[in-house]
């Protein structure tokens, strides 16, 4: 009996834990997949600690401290990460392929980052706008030159 109760308690704990992790609000644009040490999100004038499993929204500024790093995946499959002492602003994210409404803009404000393109870049590369202090970065589609023999 005691075994059964502990078993049920563990099951409940697992369910609660898993459930909390699995939720993602409809209006979120993506999910934090990993946080190592210090990372925070500036949103609506406030700042909160970033947590693995938590949502990210359009307009969020993601910040890591001197020891932190963070990994984020967006709903279109774009994959982003920041090294330590870094800052990135998620300016725009529109992913409605059925209505042909697509767009992504991010500013890399300081530190180091990685970006792996997602579906928005595949469907509408001209709608992807990445920028740093000194540059804008355009994602180009594959270009093919064809010469047909006479």
């Amino acid at each position, binding site marked *: 009996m005691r075994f059964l109760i502990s078993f049920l308690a563990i099951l409940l704990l697992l369910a609660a834990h*898993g*459930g909390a*992790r*699995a*939720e*993602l609000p409809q209006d979120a644009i993506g*999910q934090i*997949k*990993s946080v*190592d040490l210090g990372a925070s999100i500036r949103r609506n004038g406030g700042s909160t600690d970033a947590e*693995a*499993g938590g949502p990210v929204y359009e307009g969020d500024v993601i910040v890591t401290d001197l020891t932190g*790093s*963070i*990994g*984020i*995946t967006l*709903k279109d*499959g774009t*994959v*982003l*990460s*920041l*090294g*330590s*002492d*870094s800052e990135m602003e998620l300016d725009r994210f529109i992913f409605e*392929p*059925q209505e042909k409404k697509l767009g992504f803009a991010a500013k*890399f*404000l*300081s*530190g*180091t*980052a*990685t*970006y*792996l*393109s*997602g*579906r928005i*870049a*595949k469907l509408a590369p001209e709608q992807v706008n*990445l920028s*740093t*202090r*000194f*540059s*804008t*970065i*355009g*994602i*180009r*589609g*594959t*270009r093919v030159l064809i010469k047909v023999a006479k």
Partner: protein
Amino acid sequence: MEPISFFLFWLVGSLLLGVPEDTIVLVEDADGKVGSIVVANDGGAQVISTANTAVTLSSRSSEPSAPRQLSREEVSSLFQRALDAAPQAPQSFMLYFETGTSTLTAESRSSLEQIVATFNNRTLARANIIGHTDTVGDAAGNYRLALRRATAIKQMLVDAGLKEDAVDTRSHGETDLIVKTGDNTPEPSNRRVEVTLW
């Protein structure tokens, strides 16, 4: 049943503290594919289309540097922390259906197991399920059929242990064809559900 890769480009942007330069590096993705990027500012533009190649910029108005090949050691010394933090790239699977039904073909039934195993191996995994049809029948009916297909797959995956609130479903009806056809054309490749784990 080949997963579709949407991920042609993997680019690393950097503003190193203390170094008054932006460094932009193009690298290959997890499948070894290399895309192409254009780095531009008020001074000019540079195209990069080979892996581990960098352009640096020292101001908004001065021309970007010529592309320069970096060694693997240089790339990791600049970006190791950010590279280590990058989440696993999403993975996609295609499941196919018998005409006019939400019954999977025999081959696709076996790839359901692979989806479940992959889901369980990912960190904080989520599944995005999109239903599609071919062009047989009218658009409204196909929207509903594609939704039934997506919902049927969701139920199978939830029965196999996926958490319901980690799964999103939607229908693209007959509007998103893999093989372009005219109206009322049966095409097995278009009768599909796309499952992306991310």
